[in-house]
């Protein structure tokens, strides 16, 4: 544990850079998130970018410029779109921004030679989940954003959430911190040779081998989970059909159902 403290004390200049990065990023997000209805988008974007740049200075370099640039592009897209996603007013745009963030993340996966996960992310998340949710959103809230999308539920929610997030992030950064910000690449200890894994041409085959040997039981269990989810989703919809039991006291506040929406009949634009 003492190492951590030593680090904390030793790398004061480095950590101050870090602190600034976190603070600026937090402020930027706060301007977006807490003041959803104010036109501060530009300011917050500037702050966010600034924070990312600071963070970039702090982060260690790991390779040649091509790799570095690719990584930076993908990472900044992933993070910035994520930030935009949670701070945009309209839930529809949120889903789209999130899909974009997912695409960038898949790029990062590819960068790590995790091709299968990358494609699975695109197919399952961006392709299936997000799109389905988009449908539901348009079904339920075709008018774009609703009043409640513009505010948070309490004045303290955004500051506290950002505080929690900031401390989490700071703790993580301190944990991962190499000895000082922006160190040249070579200084980062022994350079690990490119692993067999990273250059493996039969990556997917190996993944499949592992999946169906060691994790076979887990695969079966996931199958079971999917079965439950499927049956459960259908049962939930059936149960919900007659929306409330008439005469029940606490159901009285429910307004009558509109005629259109239901799981099967699509009223999407």
């Amino acid at each position, binding site marked *: 544990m003492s190492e951590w403290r030593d680090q904390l004390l030793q790398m004061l200049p480095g950590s101050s850079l870090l602190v600034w990065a976190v603070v600026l990023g937090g402020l930027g997000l706060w301007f977006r998130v807490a003041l959803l209805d104010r036109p501060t988008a530009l300011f917050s974007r500037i702050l966010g970018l600034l924070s990312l740049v600071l963070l970039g200075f702090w982060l*260690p370099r790991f390779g040649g410029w091509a790799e570095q640039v690719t990584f930076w592009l993908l990472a900044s897209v992933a993070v910035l779109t994520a930030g935009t996603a949670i701070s945009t007013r309209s839930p529809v745009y949120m889903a789209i921004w999130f899909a974009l963030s997912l695409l960038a993340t898949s790029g990062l996966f590819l960068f790590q030679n995790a091709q299968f996960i990358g494609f699975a*992310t695109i197919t399952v998340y961006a392709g299936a989940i997000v799109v389905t949710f988009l449908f539901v959103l*348009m079904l339920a809230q075709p008018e774009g954003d609703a009043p*409640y999308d513009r505010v948070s539920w309490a004045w303290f929610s955004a500051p506290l959430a*950002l505080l929690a997030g*900031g401390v989490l992030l700071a703790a993580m950064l301190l944990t991962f911190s190499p000895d000082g910000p922006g160190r040249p690449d070579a200084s980062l200890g022994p350079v690990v040779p490119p692993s067999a894994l990273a250059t493996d041409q039969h990556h997917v085959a190996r993944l499949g081998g592992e999946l169906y040997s060691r994790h076979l039981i887990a695969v079966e269990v996931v199958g079971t989970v999917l079965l439950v989810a499927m049956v*459960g989703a259908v049962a939930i919809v059936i149960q919900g059909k007659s929306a*409330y039991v008439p005469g029940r006291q606490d159901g009285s506040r429910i307004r009558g159902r509109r005629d259109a929406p239901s*799981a099967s009949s699509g009223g999407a634009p």
Partner: protein
Amino acid sequence: MNEAALLVNFLIVGGLLFVTGMVGFLVRRNLIVMFLSAEMMLQGVSVSLIAWGRFHQDLGGQMLALFIIAIAAAEAGIALALILMLYLRSQTLDVAFWHDLREEGQPPYVDQGIPETHREEHKWPRLTPSGVRPEVDQEEQMHRSRV
């Protein structure tokens, strides 16, 4: 490439995604947005896992990430059904609408400071309904719903 530095870079990206998703979950009130924010947190976890897996030259991380995706799909199915049903009952996707279950004597939640809209709201195009809505036989619907 310097694998260790690569690891640190990726872990930080993962952490950023996790924290961003968390903030979104805590701050946004739309049910679907909240769910997608939670998925964003999972995405952060996946990034970290894959980075670790590469660092250790082990497939375990990718495996866990794969299972995360599968479970997320299952949860998304449930979430869809649930959110749809909740919407049908309340006609809103606002999570703060659901606060009837609380400690006795606590004041009900009142929305404060929803800003008035000044600008013209952006409208989504709506398709005009065409044709006649078919008569639905209730009995038949009950029967169908079981299949």
